[in-house]
């Protein structure tokens, strides 16, 4: 037959990308009134040991009977005892997730998506700028860098939220602030009793910090309005769009570039992202 078309083959041996790993929740950490972190371990010990991911990759957490939702794996690939995900209560899945306790079963499909270009960042100064739940994706990269500290230059972490009650990962920050090889700045929007750190909006504090743009990369994640002003501030500080890395959130279902809903023009956030440089984003369709 003269037909040149080859039908893609069906390989039953390949792992089914829709089948979650069964996992058990080890610990639930209440971060804020609407954010909880979940530390989970795959039930299949071998699968857990062999589970490999890169900082910035995401996973789909499953609540059977409710559905799936996408979260960044915010533990570090260098620390393997558990996978950590943090969820802000918003929709059906996150609400159900917030009802879970240690010992409960959960499904996880991971790793999905691309990751932070951590190799390209080697030898550079890194400034992390996180707002609210946006600290989660930064956390994984930061933990990874701290475990490979010598590969990177100066590390500055700027993290802010509305009020002290809205700050997550305070257990980490306590530890990080005690270190002398990174600089940590916390800020809140308005004065609060007992607050010993900065007060002010993140973009303003960033401008005040004035991290040098030379040989530096800014990694930022947070609510859209914060990102908008952080980008302006970074531009003023001399960062070009190649030096700014961010990670996007979109409604996802399959997580493997098929189901069709997370596209921005011809880019799929679930496979081409979620990590993008600002330069990449500038080239993409205006449909965020």
């Amino acid at each position, binding site marked *: 037959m003269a037909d040149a078309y080859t039908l893609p083959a069906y390989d039953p041996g390949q792992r*089914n990308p829709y089948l979650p790993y069964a996992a058990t929740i080890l610990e639930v950490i209440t971060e804020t009134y609407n954010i909880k972190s979940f530390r989970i371990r795959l039930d299949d010990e071998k*699968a857990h040991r062999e589970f490999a991911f890169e900082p910035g990759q995401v996973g789909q957490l499953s609540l059977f009977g409710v559905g799936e939702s996408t979260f960044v794996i915010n533990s570090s690939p260098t620390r393997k005892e558990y996978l950590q995900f943090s969820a802000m209560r918003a929709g059906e899945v996150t609400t159900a997730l917030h009802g879970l306790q240690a010992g409960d079963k959960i499904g996880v499909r991971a790793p999905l998506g691309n990751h932070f270009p951590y190799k390209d960042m080697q030898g550079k100064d890194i400034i992390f700028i996180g707002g609210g739940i946006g600290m989660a994706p930064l956390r994984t990269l930061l933990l990874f860098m701290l475990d490979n500290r010598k590969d990177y230059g100066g590390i500055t972490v700027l993290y802010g939220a509305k009020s002290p009650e809205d700050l997550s990962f305070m257990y980490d920050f306590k530890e990080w602030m005690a270190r002398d090889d990174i600089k940590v700045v916390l800020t809140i929007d308005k004065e609060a009793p007992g607050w010993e750190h900065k007060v002010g909006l993140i973009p303003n504090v960033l401008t005040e910090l004035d991290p040098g743009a030379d040989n530096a990369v800014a990694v930022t994640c947070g609510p859209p309005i914060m990102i908008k002003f952080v980008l302006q501030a970074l531009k003023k500080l001399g960062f070009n769009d190649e030096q700014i890395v961010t990670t996007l959130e979109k409604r996802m279902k399959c997580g493997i570039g098929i189901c069709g809903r997370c596209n921005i023009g011809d880019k799929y956030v679930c496979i081409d992202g979620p990590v993008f440089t600002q330069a990449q984003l500038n080239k993409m369709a205006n449909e965020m």
Partner: protein
Amino acid sequence: MPELTENTKELRIVGFLCNWCSYGGADTAGVGRFIQPTDLRIIRLPCSGRVNPLFIIKALMSGADGVLVSGCHPRDCHYAEGNFYARRRLEVFKHLLPVLGIDRRRFEYTWVSASEGPRWQKVVTDFTAQIHALGPAKFFADAPELDFLKAGEGVMQP
């Protein structure tokens, strides 16, 4: 009052009762030991006005053989007006059943007050007899769309 024979196979009858009158009436019937057929199970709602007529068809299409709604007598609604709205909605909804091919006697609505234990007994007994006379409903009973419930037939995964 029609009597049901002891060995008649039970049918599935769903009752939507308002909390204040009819649920109380069913309680009163219980306190008075007014024996009733066992087919009917009661879903407690605050008011007959809470009954979305779609609950009725949902029950019938999910496998119920009969649906009964009971609320406070008109003018006695705990919430003043709920049963007035219910009356209109349920009455209109009745028209749909025969067009779908469902015998309209599979659904009735009525009023039972919290004091009317004997009346509740009669309502349940008569309605159950009415449904038994119609026999089991067959709507979508073995529809393939419920296949997704057949867990365990596929390949068990680690």
